[in-house]
């Protein structure tokens, strides 16, 4: 007899089983189809993306001499999970560190605040930038330290001890940058100053990845065999700088013990031949493990060696500025070549008096430039500002301002280096804000001799020289001559024109040539070359700044130069001889014996700057 009681319960039980099946299938759907999350997690579990660092681009000087290259450095890393029974003491001895140091490093790695990417499965940085020797010592014993690995990186190496601030340096990328640019990962290097910073994207190349399989214990199990997910690293592009490294070396030599700057430009191309900012430092100081220490020392130094004065320092251009004034006055028809002004040791107008020095009077344009007569340019500006040509003083002032801006003053020139400043060219509104409507030419007269409110960077002064040498055009000065397999920015091949005609510049050049043949720049003479120049002695709170701006040869100029020595006194004291020596080296390829002696003498002369911060 079959027992049929409770027969319906078979449906309840079967139903329950089917419901469980449905719930499980729904859950599988949710896990496998609905959510992509698990796929990503699985990939990050199993695929270890090993970064392949490309070689950073090299830098050559304009003559193909290698300046900056890479040398291998070694980072020691460890995978926390794999460390077993490591003899800490022996590890410390091998690496030359103390046990306390070891512990503090470990603690730092484990601290999520310093190291947000901490994981016991992945490589963590223990010590970075070991030299080849240190690495060799460690490598020998590596098998005794399971869980520790060596990662090869490259750091910068320099063939010359110069141009530190120009070349810049590389350092570990900051968290702020990582947040902004996801290309960078913790521990990557990035150019932080100079060319390394401004050409970072070209120099760095492109990181590659190699996809490896990693098991649950973090051990690499070989390459992933599936679809090829690897990407090759692309080497950074090499740069050829416009710098002539010999010129740079001489410049830095001559500026020893002084504060100031030298900028030399090839007028035809706008290429910067040398850019010295004194005091300078050896770029090698900012590589390797000593970088942090040296960097903080340099940044604490009162004379600010990390400041590139050539583009970040603004100075009154002093008499070098008179050349630009002469060009404006001629172009505007305020004066002509023959116009003469009286000067009896000073510019005197009513009760106003601005001192000058001893020379013949009355004086015409060319000799005024040659002897650097203050009065001539004061008269010129006065005449311009009271000319009927303009709709009042303000209009004249703004016309003047337009000329200055067209010459590259008052705004950043746009050099391919970070941190350039714009200097100062006042306009009418500027004075109206200060003096109300009652200012006249006399109020602002000192701008005509490169004093007062006018300030320029040494680069802008050098560019003035280049513009005159080019008879009224210039190409934005730049430091990179060419990029391997690439072209430089169009900005650096485009000619810019001032508002002054070429024949006007010829007249200015005549004065500058006269300054060298029998004027203030007599010492700038280089046998065999027609040198043009203009001294500058800029007044300031302390001793006068010594400046020189010039170019050579007069016809088809090869080099334009600006020298600025803070508190160096007369332009002729430091500016002229330094400028002349550099031009000689560049034009002749070497210094004469006599010049070499002169160079040595200047090199040894130091200026005392006191203990104040500069």
């Amino acid at each position, binding site marked *: 007899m079959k027992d049929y009681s*409770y027969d319906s319960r078979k449906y309840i039980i079967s139903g329950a*089983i*089917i419901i469980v099946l449905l719930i499980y299938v729904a859950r599988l759907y949710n896990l*496998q189809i609905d*959510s992509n999350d*698990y*796929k990503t*997690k699985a990939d990050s579990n199993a695929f270890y993306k090993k970064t392949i660092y490309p070689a950073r681009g090299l830098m050559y000087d304009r003559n193909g001499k290698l300046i900056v290259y890479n040398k291998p450095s070694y980072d020691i890393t460890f995978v926390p999970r794999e460390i077993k029974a490591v003899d800490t003491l022996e590890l410390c001895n091998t690496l030359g560190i103390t046990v306390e140091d070891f512990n503090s490093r470990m603690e730092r790695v484990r601290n999520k605040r310093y190291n947000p990417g901490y994981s016991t499965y992945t490589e963590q940085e223990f010590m970075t930038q070991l030299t080849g020797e240190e690495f060799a010592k460690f490598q020998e014993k590596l098998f005794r330290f399971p869980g520790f690995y060596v990662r090869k990186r490259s750091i910068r190496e320099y063939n010359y001890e110069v141009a530190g601030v120009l070349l810049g340096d590389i350092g570990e990328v900051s968290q702020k940058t990582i947040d902004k640019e996801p290309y960078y990962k913790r521990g990557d290097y990035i150019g932080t100053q100079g060319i390394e910073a401004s050409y970072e994207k070209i120099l760095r190349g492109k990181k590659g990845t190699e996809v490896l*399989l990693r098991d649950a214990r973090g051990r690499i199990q070989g390459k992933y065999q599936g679809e090829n997910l690897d990407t090759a690293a692309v080497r950074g592009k090499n740069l050829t700088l416009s710098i002539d490294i010999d010129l740079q070396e001489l410049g830095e030599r001559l500026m020893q013990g002084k504060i100031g700057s030298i900028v030399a430009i090839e007028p035809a191309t706008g290429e910067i031949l040398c850019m010295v900012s004194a005091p300078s430092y050896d770029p090698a100081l900012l590589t390797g493990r000593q970088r942090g220490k040296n960097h903080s020392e340099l940044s604490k130094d009162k004379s600010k060696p990390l400041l590139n004065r050539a583009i970040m320092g603004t100075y009154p251009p002093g008499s070098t500025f008179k050349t630009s004034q002469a060009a404006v006055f001629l172009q505007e028809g305020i004066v002509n070549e023959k116009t003469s002004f009286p000067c009896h040791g000073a510019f005197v107008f009513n009760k106003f008096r601005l001192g000058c020095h001893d020379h013949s009077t009355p004086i015409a344009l060319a000799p005024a430039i040659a002897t650097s007569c203050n009065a001539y340019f004061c008269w010129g500006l006065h005449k311009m500002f009271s000319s009927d040509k303009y709709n009042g003083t303000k209009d004249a002032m703004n016309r003047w301002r337009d000329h200055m801006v067209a010459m590259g003053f008052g705004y950043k020139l746009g050099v391919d280096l970070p941190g350039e400043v714009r200097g100062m060219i006042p306009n009418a509104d500027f004075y109206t804000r200060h003096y109300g409507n009652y200012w006249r030419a006399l109020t602002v007269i000192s701008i005509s001799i490169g004093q007062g409110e006018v300030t320029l960077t040494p680069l802008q002064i050098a560019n003035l020289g280049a513009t005159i040498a080019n008879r009224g055009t210039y190409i934005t000065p730049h430091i990179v001559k060419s990029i391997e397999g690439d072209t430089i920015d169009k900005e650096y091949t485009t000619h810019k024109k001032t508002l002054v005609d070429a024949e006007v510049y010829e007249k200015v050049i005549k004065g500058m040539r006269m300054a060298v043949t029998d004027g203030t720049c007599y010492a700038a003479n280089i046998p065999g070359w027609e040198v043009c120049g203009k001294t500058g002695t800029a007044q300031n709170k302390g001793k006068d700044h010594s400046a020189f701006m010039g170019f050579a040869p007069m016809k088809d100029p090869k080099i334009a130069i600006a020298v600025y020595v803070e508190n160096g006194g007369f332009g002729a004291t430091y500016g002229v001889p330094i400028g002349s020596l550099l031009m000689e080296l560049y034009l002749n390829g070497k210094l004469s014996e006599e010049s070499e002696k002169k160079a040595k003498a200047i090199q040894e002369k130091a200026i005392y700057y006191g203990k104040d911060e500069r």
Partner: protein
Amino acid sequence: MEKTKGNILGRIDWITLFLYLLLAVMGWLAICGASHSYIETNFLEFFDQSDRSGKQALWMGISLVAGSILLCIHRETYRNLSGLAYIAGLALCILTIFIAKDIKGSHSWISIGSFSIQPAEFMKFATALMLATFIGQREFNMSNNNDFIKCVAIIMLPMIIIVAQNETGSALVYLSLFLVLYREGMTGIFLLMAISAVAYFVIGIKFGETMFEQLPIATGPYWVTILIQTFALAMVKFWCKNDKTFLTMFIVNIAGTLCSYWIAIYLIEFNIIITQYLLLVFNVIYLLLRTRLNKEGKNLWVAIYIVCSIIFYNSCDYVMHNILEPHQKVRIEVLLGLKDDLSGAGYNVHQSKIAIGSGGMTGKGFLNGTQTKLKYVPEQDTDFIFCTIGEEQGFLGATFILTLFVVFILRLIVLAERQNDRFGRTYGYALASIFFFHFAINIGMVIGIMPVIGIPLPFFSYGGSSFLGFSILLFSFLRIDADREYARR
């Protein structure tokens, strides 16, 4: 009575046997997938005895031989030997506690030469057989308390011994045999109580701190009140079979719940859990009134059920938040998936979900799973074998395996239902229940919706004892089913 009628091969259920072989082959392939690394072209390596897939193949062979022998034993012999098997099994399990080596705290393995066996796996067979024999007695009556208690004792005795072996997971399997008792007439109230207790606890704690819609109340307690209402209504409808009481309660509860919800969301914010409790109080009072006025005795039990539910849930909540130590609380929260404990038990489940989830629709292909190959999932060829299937065969493959399993279990139920006596039916249901419990708990654990209880997936998880044990259960039943015509009438 004839001893045989036709060849035994003509009478066994080939469908079940086919399903069994299919599951076994798939399980073996999954073990190959889980224990072999990437590029292996030589198929013979799967049979290498130093590998788990090779060992499993050997065990499968042994099981088939054992199964063939079991097919030769007559139904009545099983029945006659059940008592002996049960007592011998109990003795062996007790002996195991003392002679077994300590493996991760459990004393459940006996080593014979190079093989180890787990007596608890065979105890399921003995217990199922004993239970079937006991219930199959002509004079057995489930509503007789004496008989019922004996049933419970048959189930609980091995369970207690296995708990003593520190194999809680295996011990819990015996609970599934209560499903057999339910089929044979045990009141469903026990099952309902067990299910509702688990539901209150899990839902109440899991959603204890989730905000309900935009109201300032927690989702957990709110849903628990709804669950209590639902269960109570279901009891009135299906157990008391009192349509009038049901209709009144149904209308009041639905209207009350919806109105308070609507008012709270769209008019004035207030704590709708309070109105839910008021509804429960109404239900209790109404049921008590009905009991008193209409002499509907079963209503009283429903009222008691509601009160007990409320007390149970609130005491759970109290225990959870005020009595348990923080680490105990964390363990429960991990179990419920509230916290990711990636270093402990949560690690397995987390990695297992990753492995399965990464399989996608069609999977990564046989031997191509990265997660399982690289050993991200611990115990991936034993308890967590299903994630290899999920990863390598994807949603389609995994769903196919799950469905196949359920078809197998349902086939067992069909066979059980076609038995002419309670002995055969009970034994069939015991099998179905055991397989179902293993299936539900193991898969549920691997896909992260059940707590981590270490029990194997039948025919899939690596392990000789478990494969042999499940085969013994199945083959003995195949013979019992084949001989169903000879059942004592």
